[in-house]
């Protein structure tokens, strides 16, 4: 596997907020202009730092939602009720504001077209964010491998990137949604949690050796990864990214 390292020091940069996009009632995408951004790979994240007037600072990490090919760097942030940084980013930040960040960070949970596939992405909740980057990178890189996203949300209203996922499905990605709490009367996607039955139906068989990426809350990632290993997938081809309730 590729082991490209980040070279040099990761300096703090100032981005300018170009646009804020409402994704769901709890999630916003921050579209950032970063003049001297040196690029990133799909799946990497950044550290964001906020500074109060008295010098107090708070730092958090957020996945990058944009592909390396995109003009702007996009972060999608879920507002956590007892959070410190996410309520600021989703409710106070306005277009034109500056935001301090550094990155890209993390070289393991990344997908580049050169790694091949088939590419299987399994997301729970806001764990879908790095997969937006991977799907956009996949679309920009001539879709040479098969790509499939299985994405679990509580309700359709909580489903992030709905329009974008429809579009990427039209381009040939296999996008499968499952809703766990409630669904519209005419819902044609899956219903219920990502369990062994749904994985048997949706995941490629282990013999096809998909590259598997799982991102979501800890319990979701643990359950999905364990089910795939039990089904015969190689642990070394399963990459995970987890977030607990404290990613505020």
């Amino acid at each position, binding site marked *: 596997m590729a082991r490209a390292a980040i070279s040099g020091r990761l300096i703090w940069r100032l981005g300018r907020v170009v646009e804020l996009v409402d994704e769901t009632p709890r999630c916003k995408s921050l579209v950032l202009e970063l003049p001297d951004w040196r690029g990133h790979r799909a799946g990497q994240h950044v550290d964001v730092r906020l500074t109060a007037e008295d010098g107090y600072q708070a730092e958090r990490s957020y996945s990058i939602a944009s592909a390396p090919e995109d003009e702007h760097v996009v972060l999608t942030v879920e507002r956590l009720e007892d959070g410190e940084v996410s309520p600021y980013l989703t409710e106070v930040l306005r277009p034109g504001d500056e935001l301090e960040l550094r990155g890209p960070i993390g070289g393991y949970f990344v997908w580049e077209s050169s790694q091949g596939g088939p590419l299987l992405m399994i997301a729970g909740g806001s764990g879908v964010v790095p997969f937006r980057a991977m799907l956009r990178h996949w679309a920009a890189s001539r879709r040479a491998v098969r790509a499939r996203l299985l994405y679990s949300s509580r309700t359709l209203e909580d489903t992030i990137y709905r329009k974008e996922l429809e579009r990427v499905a039209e381009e040939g990605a296999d996008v499968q949604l499952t809703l766990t709490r409630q669904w519209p009367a005419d819902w044609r996607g899956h219903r219920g949690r990502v369990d062994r039955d749904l994985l048997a139906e949706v995941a490629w068989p282990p013999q096809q050796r998909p590259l598997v990426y799982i991102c979501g809350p*800890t319990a979701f990632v643990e359950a999905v990864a*364990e089910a795939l290993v039990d089904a015969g997938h190689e642990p070394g081809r399963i990459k995970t990214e987890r977030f607990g*309730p404290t990613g505020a």
Partner: protein
Amino acid sequence: MSPISRGFTGRRRSAADPSRVPPGQHITGDFPVLSAGPTPHTPLQEWTFTIGGTVDEPVSWTWEEFMALPAETVTVDIHCVTKWSKLGTTWKGVAVDTLLDAVQTDAEYLTAWSDGGYTTNLPLDDVTDRKAWVAYEYGGEPLEPEHGGPARLLVPHLYFWKSAKWVRGLTLTPTDEPGFWETYGYHNHGDPWLEQRYQGD
């Protein structure tokens, strides 16, 4: 000098003693889980712990033998590079000093290796003099698999990725050989008080 974030006041959690929270960290009451791949489940009857590499003779313990080694209970603060810190965590395990007493070595570094293929590198100076343990209990209970059970390295004075989960051995080396995250852009040493998060920090 960082610019002021317009309208940001912060929600300082004053309960924590600021002298125990390294720069850029915040306190969590939970115990978040971060791992790069699936959680391994090695049965205890197959588990061994091995010290090898640059030693006179490698030494290995079964689970039963490991449980018979003198254990220590420590209460320490832990700091994850993803920004959370957790204060006053209590662990039981065997001091790395105790394990190293079983071998002769002139090595200056080691690589901790784990089930699942994870590795991390440490200078010997960072794991001796009661600075590191191989822990198998957390909060008085057996260490859960998602937190690194049956046993994990505990090096609380460095960022927590150095505290390798599912640790199965230490390979002593004459030179410093970067481990898993250390080759993926994270800092080679990882001192939270110097905020050594990423390469070049």
